[in-house]
């Protein structure tokens, strides 16, 4: 232990990060990565609730053709807020900033991230940006869609400027967190924790951080130009002023395509942690998974043009972007096969986190395979901007990221809180989430292929049955998520004591008490082998290294 946190301090202030110091101020001013992670988690969950409210509103209106509950203008605001909140305020910070903040330093055997004060600054930047964007709910609202396509977004008579400003500010939080993680991974690894022994969650966060640092500035510049165009009338994107509206789409997707991998890579990292633990077997193809993570991160920067196949970009550009996009599928496939390979001849446990792993593999495979459809340029022409695309990215973003997040939150809940959640209630909720999710989004593949366009406040009567199924599914999904939230909140108080390492995990976060003490470890950990060496005595549950 370092000199300033002697054993005496620990005894005096309590023995874990939660009771280490008391009062709301001790949380708001904290530099402890675990507390900051928890603060991110709660803030993100509040926005998840708001974004989910808009989703349910969209589905309710679409239960029948015609307008029932809102005007088209209100509907357009609903889908814009749903998209903008879920992307910028929920999925991007969800796993890296909330879970990553808590787990990453612990998996490295570090006391904190490299720059704890910057870490807190990132959180407040995120909150500031999110509040500015959310304030428009009480102004004129925003109706541009989360993609802010020009020239509509320039001419839209709404509070789009504030949402753009909010997203611009939140970008800095993302960049700072990314930088912080990169430095932490490079400089704060425990003795013996070589690159080849890093947990795959760390590798995933490393790749994600690189994307955050390199791509987010491009979004910042783009949003700033759009703000200037809206307020000062400079002509960058509006053809009336001599600008090019398609240029905006290039700029926007140059960030937002890599951002898709900011959302999914950490989720894949979580799955790579869960599979070996609950299979009691080393991960299959460690190097291949770590390599695939970086393969995806690299390719993510050069495929943005596949969002523009029908935008009017050149035939040659379509050729190149369709070809390169195919390369995304290869490392993604390698990961899925490697997770299956890990289960092969394992000794499988079916605790809730593992249930979510199966759910993830089921829906993510569908999400990935339908992505190939959209990468094939001619197939994309018919399917793009229809509900097929909506279904595809919800299978990846919700089916992938949210499933992995739910698996991870159940897996690390005992570490966060020291308590265990109610197992059978959690499993019941998991089934509801799985069923609700598929009932919501699978019909959208069909209705999209039949031609129903996205962002439609009203639709033709021939699409009614598919939309009804989808709406009913959204209620089941919401119920599953509410039960999960109830279970976790309640278990924080009334859950049984979980013990330090209920899953028998071998990564470093499990080699300390639950909840972990201030500065994480009573003794400086030393690493002597890889993170998933399940053999001999360690195959059974609950046996520590």
């Amino acid at each position, binding site marked *: 232990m370092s000199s300033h946190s002697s054993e005496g301090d620990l005894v005096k202030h309590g023995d874990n990060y939660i009771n280490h110091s008391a009062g709301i101020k001790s949380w708001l001013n904290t530099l402890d990565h675990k507390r900051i992670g928890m603060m991110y988690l709660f803030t993100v969950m509040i926005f998840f609730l708001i974004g989910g409210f808009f989703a349910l509103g969209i589905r309710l209106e679409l239960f029948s*053709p015609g*307008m029932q509950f809102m005007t*088209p*203008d209100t509907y*357009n605001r609903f889908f814009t807020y749903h998209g903008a909140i879920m992307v910028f305020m929920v999925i991007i910070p969800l796993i890296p900033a909330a879970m990553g903040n808590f787990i990453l330093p612990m998996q490295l055997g570090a006391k904190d991230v490299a720059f704890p004060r910057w870490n807190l600054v990132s959180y407040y930047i995120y909150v500031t940006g999110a509040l500015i964007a959310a304030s428009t709910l009480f102004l004129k609202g925003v*109706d541009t*869609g989360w993609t802010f*396509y020009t*020239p*509509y977004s320039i001419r*839209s008579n709404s509070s789009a400027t504030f949402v753009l400003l909010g997203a611009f500010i939140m970008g800095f939080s993302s960049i700072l967190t990314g930088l912080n993680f990169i430095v932490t991974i490079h400089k704060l690894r425990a003795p013996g924790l070589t690159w080849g022994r890093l947990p795959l969650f760390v590798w995933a966060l490393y790749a994600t951080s690189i994307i955050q640092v390199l791509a987010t500035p491009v979004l910042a510049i783009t949003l700033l130009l759009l703000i200037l165009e809206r307020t000062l009338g400079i002509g960058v994107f509006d*053809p*009336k002023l*001599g600008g090019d*509206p398609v240029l905006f789409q290039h700029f926007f997707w140059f960030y937002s395509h890599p951002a898709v991998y900011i959302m999914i890579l950490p989720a894949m990292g979580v799955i790579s942690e869960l599979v070996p633990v609950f*299979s*009691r*077997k*080393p*991960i299959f*193809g*460690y*190097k291949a998974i770590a390599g695939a993570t970086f393969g995806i991160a690299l390719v993510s920067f050069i495929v943005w043009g596949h969002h523009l196949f*029908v*935008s*009017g970009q050149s035939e040659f550009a*379509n050729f190149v972007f369709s*070809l390169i996009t195919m390369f995304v599928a*290869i490392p993604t*496939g*390698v990961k899925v*096969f490697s997770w*299956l390979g890990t*289960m*092969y001849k*394992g*000794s*499988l446990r079916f605790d809730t986190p593992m249930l979510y792993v199966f759910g993830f*593999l089921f829906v993510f495979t*569908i999400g990935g*395979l339908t992505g190939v*459809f959209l*990468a094939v*340029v*001619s*197939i994309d*022409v*018919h399917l793009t*901007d229809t509900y097929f695309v909506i279904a595809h990215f919800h299978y990846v973003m919700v089916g992938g990221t949210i499933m992995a997040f739910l698996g991870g939150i159940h897996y690390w809940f005992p570490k966060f809180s020291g308590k265990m959640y109610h197992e059978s209630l959690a499993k019941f909720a998991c089934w509801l989430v799985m069923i609700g999710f598929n009932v919501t989004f699978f019909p959208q593949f*069909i209705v999209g*292929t*039949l*031609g129903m*366009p*996205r962002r*439609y*406040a*009203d639709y*033709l009567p*021939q699409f009614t049955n598919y939309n009804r199924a989808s709406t009913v599914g959204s209620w089941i999904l919401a119920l599953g998520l509410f039960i999960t939230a109830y279970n976790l909140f309640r278990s924080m108080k009334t859950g049984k004591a979980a013990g330090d390492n209920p899953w028998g995990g071998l990564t470093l976060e499990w080699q300390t008490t639950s909840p972990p003490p201030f500065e994480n470890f009573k003794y400086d950990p030393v690493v002597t082998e890889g993170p998933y060496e399940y053999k001999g005595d360690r195959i059974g549950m609950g046996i520590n290294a």
Partner: protein
Amino acid sequence: MTKLMLALLLSSTSITSAFAATLPVAATDVSQSWDTLYWFLIWVSGIFFVGIVLAMIIFVVKYRKEVHKKSKYIHGHTGLEIVWTVIPSILLFVMFGWGWAVYKDMIHAPSDAMEIHVIGKQWMWQFVYKNGTSSIGDLYVPLNKPVKMVMSSEDVIHSFFIPNFRVKQDVVPGMYTYVWFEAKVPGIHQIFCTEYCGTSHSGMLGRVIVLKDDQWKDWQQGKKIDVDSLPADPSFPGFRANRLGEGMPSTAGTSSTSGGQISLAEKGKALTTAKGCVACHSSDGTKIVGPSYKGIYGTDVKLADGSTVKIDENYIRESIENPTAKVVEGFPPSMPPYKGLVNEEEIMAITEYIKSLK
């Protein structure tokens, strides 16, 4: 296992037909080749999906801790990893290549295709034909003849989508984009706007009305076509295709500017006089201040900066709106920009006039 495979193969045709209802009717040759590729993708991804799920189920049964107490200590298998990298890669390149082949047919219109202008505006589709007629919401085309849409937008980005023809293209302000098709099924086909464009985006609908030879002749001669008597959209038996504004609060306030009976090119000719273009540009090949319009369309010209450019719709638009951007060699950069002084329909008419001067 082999029996199962055989049964699967035998039932494949019936499965395909059961799922065929999940696609709109294929009303062009391009849509049919699109469908073949689509089913190939469905089968390949279906096999991968079933394989992955089957593996999971087998592992769950065989390796659950109750029956498989000790896991095997394995870190990987290089051969297997190579196999599951290489095989998908090959399949992906096949998909890419096939997809590209279909795409080329999809975007390259035959040279004899009949051109129709499309103007997207919030929230309607306007179609302008060579003979100067225009229609809103309903697009009239002949059966079995290639038709090429020359499209632009007057305000924000729209997207022109005909599911039965499997074509879609964004309609962008300030530039021209194209879509072509050769309809093989007479009757009505749905048109959607698929790029979000504001309040009544979902009301920006239209219908393609594919006419047989005699009906097409009637329509060209100005006779009214009884659209309701034509076959309904075959993709949704029992539902009529919807046109602009039906069932939606239409906020479209712009009045229709139908061209009357003068042709588009004639209208363009009148405009070149009215706007003063003829002071500098002749129509008979004489060089005044600027280049003559005669015979220039479709040719390559050398610019003052040494590069060459093909004179097409986009070049003409640019040269009207921002003439000094690409000045033809040997001419002074003296024309003032007409941006904002000519509207979308006027640019289109002038372009047609220039095209007509062979």
